[in-house]
């Protein structure tokens, strides 16, 4: 391996290419067993994408992942890393080029955080200065303070912090491929969500090829560019993007595994700006009533929104506001909840439901009204086929 190529560039981003990964009828049959743990798995993971292997226990997802770095030997078929068979590689050397993070993390309790992260760089003979610089860089990358963390020992950190160190250690030599086996499985739900978001943000920077194993379909939908659903007997049930999977499950098993709420899950993959909003009548106080009525007729809903001079929503006008010549400031209800274009659709829906209103004014980042969101708008969206399939990584990237 060429050390130069794995050197991080000054801006902290890696200039090392991500690898492509291909399973070619990869099969694992344990001695003494009749049926394979993994049965002719064929799929391709494009460089820089997260491929989630998901399925019930005993579906062979972990087996498939561990065959990539030859922690488990391949019985039949092949796995190609950048077009080269992993079967031709020396296992230890192969593993040093592949990041490895597991649920139990497996930090070495007798080594400081810095030494834990330095494990593979040391194996590769990096000099001390380079290692120290890389350790600090990695700690910052996973949002840990290097000064505070590097000399501590694993038991002194919280579960979430240890998990971050595990990820940092897996990234140490900037590997073109990462294997992650339920990396957030042992973390409480709140912190898990934070770590997932952080990791997606990180991935949008480092753009590694990642094989991510989980049993949790929600996590799979959130983390995956592509999801491979495996079923008992190690058979691939479906390999598709989250959007496709939710829209077009290819059979009973996938449909059931994805869950009856798969429509709702799709909402987690979209932002308010992605769907066709309704047009609202935006009326200012003092405006001619005839003009205002024309706006209502032109809009998608039967009531008008009172906006201030900057076009920001103030409330829904009551019918009595239109009794004179000029529109009066008479409100039937406040303009709540106010939804932003950048909100995740699922969160916006939750806001609508908790506020117990039919319509939510949608504003852009300057606070101006951009449209109206309603339950009907969302339901229309769910019945339409997705125009483009998006992933959580895309969402995170847009945010950045």
């Amino acid at each position, binding site marked *: 391996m060429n050390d130069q190529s794995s050197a991080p560039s000054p801006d902290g981003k890696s200039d090392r290419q991500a690898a492509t990964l291909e399973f070619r009828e990869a099969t694992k049959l344990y001695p003494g067993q009749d049926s394979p743990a993994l049965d002719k798995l064929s799929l391709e993971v494009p460089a820089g994408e997260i491929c989630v292997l998901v399925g019930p226990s005993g579906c062979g997802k972990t087996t498939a992942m561990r065959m990539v770095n030859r922690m488990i030997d391949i019985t039949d078929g092949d796995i190609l890393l950048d077009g080269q068979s992993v079967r031709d590689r020396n296992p*230890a050397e192969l593993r040093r080029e592949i990041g490895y993070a*597991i649920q139990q993390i497996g930090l070495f309790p007798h080594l400081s955080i810095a030494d834990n992260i330095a494990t593979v760089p040391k194996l590769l003979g990096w000099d001390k200065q380079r290692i120290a610089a890389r350790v600090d860089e990695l700690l910052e990358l996973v949002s840990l303070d290097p000064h505070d963390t590097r000399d501590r020992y694993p038991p002194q950190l919280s579960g979430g912090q240890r998990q971050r160190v595990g990820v940092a250690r897996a990234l140490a030599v900037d590997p073109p491929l990462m294997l992650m086996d339920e990396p957030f499985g042992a973390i409480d739900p709140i912190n898990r969500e934070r770590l997932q978001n952080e990791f997606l943000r990180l991935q949008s920077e480092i753009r590694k090829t990642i094989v991510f194993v989980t049993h949790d379909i929600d996590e799979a939908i959130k983390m995956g560019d592509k999801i491979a659903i495996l079923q008992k007997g190690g058979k691939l049930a479906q390999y598709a993007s989250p959007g496709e999977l939710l829209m077009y499950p290819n059979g009973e098993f996938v449909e059931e595994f994805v869950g009856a709420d798969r429509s709702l899950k799709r909402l987690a993959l979209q932002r308010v700006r992605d769907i066709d909003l309704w047009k609202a009548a935006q009326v200012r106080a003092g405006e001619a009533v005839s003009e205002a009525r024309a706006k209502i007729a032109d809009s998608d809903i039967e009531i008008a929104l009172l906006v201030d001079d900057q076009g920001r929503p103030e409330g829904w006008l009551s019918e009595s506001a239109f009794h004179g010549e000029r529109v009066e400031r008479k409100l039937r209800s406040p303009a709540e909840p106010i939804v932003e274009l950048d909100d995740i659709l699922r969160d916006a829906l939750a806001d609508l439901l908790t506020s117990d209103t039919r319509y939510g004014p949608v504003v852009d980042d300057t606070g101006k009204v951009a449209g109206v969101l309603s339950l009907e708008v969302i339901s229309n969206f769910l019945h339409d086929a997705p125009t483009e399939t998006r992933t959580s990584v895309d969402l995170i990237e847009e945010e950045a």
Partner: protein
Amino acid sequence: MTFEPLIAQLQTRDRSKDSGCVIDDGLCPDWIVDNFDRYVDPFWQHVYLTVTPVAIGFLIAFGLALLAHRRNWLVGPIASVTGTLYTIPSVAFFFLLQPITGLGNTTAIVALVCYTLLIIFRNVITGLQAVPEDAKDAARGMGLTDRQMLWRVELPLALPEILAGVRIATTTTVGLAALAFLAGGGGLGQELDQDPFFKSNVVVAGGLAILLAAILDVIILTFQRFATSWQRAAA
């Protein structure tokens, strides 16, 4: 060196004439102060009879443990053999060995080595077996070879258990070495045996043996605290 015990004996005789304490086999501080010199050489002999067997025993047991570590079927047989050695009464052991190794240090040391094997072997194996699976899996997954994993992960994590074994073996050996004189090995045991009814003698020789056990224990413990400082990080 050779005439020092002689002088000591002369002194004993001298003092026994006019000290009722010595005649009564009592505890005489004066006698102890005057005769302390005669225990110095036996003391150092005792150190030698303890440290050498523990060192040799450690090398053998450690080697056996590493051998059995990756070949689990060997653990049983090795534990049986070292366990059997451990149960042989020391006196019998010395007499059994005498025809082969003669009278002297060698016999004593061979026997004492055999007694350390079981303790150290078992502790090394226990320590290695207690290394967390997740740490081993992570190590393998990151590309450590078996040997790298052994020296960088497994042995450091097993060190507290290994050193605990060495401590027990050392303390035990200090006690057993007191019988080494039966094999012609000298040591504090010999002094004890020469005048077992004279309290001053028993207190000094026995006391020195206990002191030696304590000192060696503290030395190993200090090393252990230094070498496994990571263990206290969790506290």
